[in-house]
């Protein structure tokens, strides 16, 4: 089996434009709270979600909007949810970190690591009630250090549950370089549970699709869980308005408030030795410079790679993109007006 690159590109492009629209609405103050976009992770979502069918489940983290969209959740009700409207997918009760669709067996949570146990439970239900169905857990590399995630892997492996654990490795969790707080390799960690593991370029949708195809196929046949470690980067940082990006892009403006207090504190008597203080300071500046630049500014766009392959049919590509652009424009208009297909106000 080979992937349909047109279909995958269309999922990715739609997700990208959807999240760009979300970014604008958030900037305009129409979406509240934090906003964790998954721009840069589209290939992982598309390469996996495109395999899912009725009865399959998804356990999502705080960055699950693309998966919901790609799984076929009505985009207008999805956007209405982010806008906090009564017409939203969850009546405005959940927001982007708490998206739920029972019809798609899709559940999200903002508690880091909780998609592990969630997928295990979905898979347990599948084993009993829907043989052949699978559950996918999406999470970041930071979540791999959560006890419940490791416990879930053990559980899934011992019970041979149909789970696909998908770790999107962006190397950094909020401001913490994950390797600085992680011992051993995540790949070996999964292997040590006897879970077949594959490390993969998270921008290559074709490879992801193929790897997911194999893993999901095995899970459907009752051969137990798999683990995919996909490397990708996110140009929007941890969340919109990410201070690391703000400071790195505009150090003079942003450090104006921060620098005096920092300097004053470093020069205070009583505390660590001078050498240790300099080390601390240099580790902070390296996160605010090098690390942020390497992680967020050197963006390896998953859409570019696929687009290159489709470019030979320029007309078809342009028509597809044009169609999706129109679609997204209409989705935004409908969402702002609260025109969902299944208009149901929640009181």
């Amino acid at each position: 089996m080979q992937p349909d690159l047109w279909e995958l590109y269309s999922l990715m492009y739609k997700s990208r434009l959807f999240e760009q629209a979300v970014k604008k609405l958030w900037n305009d103050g129409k979406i509240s709270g934090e906003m964790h976009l998954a721009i840069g992770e589209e290939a992982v979502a598309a390469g996996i979600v495109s395999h899912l069918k009725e009865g399959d489940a998804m356990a999502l983290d705080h960055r699950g909007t693309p998966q919901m969209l790609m799984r076929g959740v009505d985009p207008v009700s999805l956007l209405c949810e982010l806008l906090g409207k009564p017409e939203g997918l969850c009546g405005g009760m959940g927001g982007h970190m708490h998206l739920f669709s029972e019809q798609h067996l899709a559940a999200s949570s903002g508690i880091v690591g909780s998609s592990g146990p969630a997928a295990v439970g979905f898979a347990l239900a599948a084993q009993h009630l829907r043989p052949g169905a699978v559950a996918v857990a999406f999470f970041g590399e930071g979540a791999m250090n959560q006890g419940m995630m490791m416990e879930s892997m053990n559980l899934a492996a011992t019970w041979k549950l149909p789970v696909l654990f998908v770790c999107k490795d962006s190397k950094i969790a909020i401001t913490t370089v994950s390797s600085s707080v992680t011992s051993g390799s995540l790949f070996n960690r999964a292997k040590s549970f006897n879970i077949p593991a594959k490390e993969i370029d998270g921008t290559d949708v074709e490879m992801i699709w193929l790897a997911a195809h194999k893993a999901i196929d095995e899970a459907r046949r009752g051969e137990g869980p798999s683990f995919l470690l996909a490397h990708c980067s996110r140009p929007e940082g941890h969340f919109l308005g990410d201070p690391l990006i703000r400071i790195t892009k505009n150090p003079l403006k942003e450090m104006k408030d921060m620098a005096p207090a920092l300097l004053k504190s470093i020069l205070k008597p009583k505390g660590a030795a001078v050498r240790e203080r300099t080390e601390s300071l240099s580790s902070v500046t390296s996160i605010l410079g090098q690390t942020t630049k390497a992680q967020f500014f050197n963006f390896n766009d998953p859409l570019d790679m696929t687009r290159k392959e489709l470019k030979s049919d320029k007309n078809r590509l342009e028509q597809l993109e044009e169609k999706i652009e129109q679609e997204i424009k209409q989705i935004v208009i409908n969402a702002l007006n609260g025109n969902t297909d299944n208009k149901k106000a929640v009181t």
Partner: protein
Amino acid sequence: MKSKTFAQAIDMALAQAMADDPNIIILGEDVQMLRVNLFSRFGRDRVRNTPISESAFVGAAVTAAMAGLKPVVEVMLVDFIGVAMDAILNHAAKVNSFSGGKWQVPLVIRAACGGGYGDGGQHQQSLWGWLAHIPGIMVVVPSNPADAGGLMLTALEHAGPVIYLEHKLLADYWLDYMGIGDRKTVTFDVPPNGARGPVPDKLSPVPPGKAAVRQKGSDISLVGVGVGVHRCLQAAGSLKTKGVAAEVIDLRSVSPLDIKAICESAEKTGRVLVVDEDYREFGLSGECAAVIMEAGIRAKYARVCTNDTIPYSRDLEEKTLPNTERIISAALSLMS
């Protein structure tokens, strides 16, 4: 006295205490950046970044405290404390009793709490009543910068475990990360005197379990903590124009609870309205009613609390969290 932000006062208290006591360490996710001033001054051994492993590092903080350190362990938002609950419920809170009072756990657990910026019901809870339900834990909730610094010192001086909660509408950096994000298009109902205010040049601890009367009045007692205190003060202003003199009590500490302060005020006014951003049932508001009844005081009583899961939508959230209108209308019906 200098005017400082809520967050600066906490940093100041920690710096003051850490300079004097080398056994105080800070640990938690992203503390290297969140506590950048302390990190740069005290170094990576005393301000220690953790992986996202709350059950392990909070559990470890408990025994580190038992063995001589004084950890200030951060769980970012109090909602995430769920992951570390066993360490708190079955360990930190129990060791002193189990050891026959011979072994102490001098631990501070620091977390941001509270809502009002549209982040949903898994990031905006208060939970102080739920936590204070457990015997053996002190729970403090400052409402202004001076208390934010003072109560941090109280927590650090206390011999047992303390949960220290800073409200995100008061701690500007939390609101900036979680709610504003460099936008000029959003607004929040931030109590100005809570987010910034006078702080003594050298902080001293607030006496444990001691409430503060923020405004004197003889008709009705408004009792609250954290942002709730400011909502009460605002309501008291409106009530005054209607001829009602409200007394406003800032509990500051949920556990131990200043029963004396509550009862004295209840006795004086004969009407008590508890304003609690935490959940209504089985919590602080009910506890206040219980201590008044136990003292044999006859008082009219009502409460304005968070009754349900906090909605994400800002419109719905606004109706769910205690707000000034709800306080005023509850107060007026107690008056009638």
